[in-house]
């Protein structure tokens, strides 16, 4: 991804995040979170992670955001009334965030940097030849079959965690139904 495009998506993401924190109206926060996630999906796609980028849009900007906005509308939240902010917790929180940011710079100065190199699809095609003909031929043609590779890894390497995550989703569905059932008075 060209550098200009990277910084554009990064700016969309960070400004969206700042708007989530700073806007007083919850609906405005939710909508700026959509903007933030669209920027993030752009960054994912720039990292050749097409599947994750699309999932980010569909699941976060689609499903989860609808859930948030639905709840905000259901509870009929007005813009927060201005309350006198408590100074000590706010300053402590900002201090933690500042310490984290400074630490981030320290960590980055010690991590070895890597430059963005194009993927070597021909070598990848040779290594995939024994495992999957379809993936190998697409790689040879110069395309990155991202979804095929994700599916291959998911179902061959992570089959058991996938089943567990299915059970987790089932449990959370039941939990939501139980939680939101109106208790008999």
């Amino acid at each position, binding site marked *: 991804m060209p550098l200009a495009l990277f910084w554009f998506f990064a700016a969309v993401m960070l400004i969206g995040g700042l708007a989530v924190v700073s806007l007083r109206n919850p609906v405005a926060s939710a909508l700026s979170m959509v903007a933030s996630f669209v920027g993030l999906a752009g960054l994912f796609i720039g990292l050749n992670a097409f599947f994750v980028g699309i999932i980010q849009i569909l699941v976060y900007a689609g499903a989860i955001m609808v859930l948030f906005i639905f709840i905000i509308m259901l509870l009929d939240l007005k813009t927060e009334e201005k309350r006198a902010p408590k100074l000590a917790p706010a300053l402590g929180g900002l201090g933690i965030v500042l310490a984290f940011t400074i630490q981030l710079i320290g960590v980055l100065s010690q991590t070895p940097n890597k430059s963005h190199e194009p993927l070597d699809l021909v070598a990848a095609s040779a290594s995939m030849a024994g495992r999957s003909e379809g993936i190998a031929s697409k790689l040879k043609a110069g395309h990155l079959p991202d979804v095929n590779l994700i599916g291959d890894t998911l179902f061959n390497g992570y089959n058991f965690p996938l089943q567990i995550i299915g059970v987790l989703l089932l449990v959370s569905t039941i939990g939501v139904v139980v939680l*939101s059932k109106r208790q008999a008075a």
Partner: protein
Amino acid sequence: MASLHDYLLVSGLLFAIGLAGVVLRRNIIVMFMCLELMLSAANLTLVAFSRFNGMNGLPDYNGQMLVFFVITVAAAEVSVGLAIIVALYRARQTIHTDDLNSLKG
């Protein structure tokens, strides 16, 4: 071309913004959104490392599997959390954390 450090810096900043939101905001729904921002920042780090530490000319798909699972767990967490918020609102008619202090001694 953006380097690994650029991606790590941007995702660290997004995490810091999310952290600031959780610490500073007093509205539970907005705090929840900021939690999502922090999870997404971690996802960006994972995808960046997966792309820059490739194996055999491909990205390391094990990292993207973790992203997939994080997104799924986040979806489950949001659904349960919002159900708890609805139950809380029914009981207390507020979602402002300063008003939820009945556990305070």
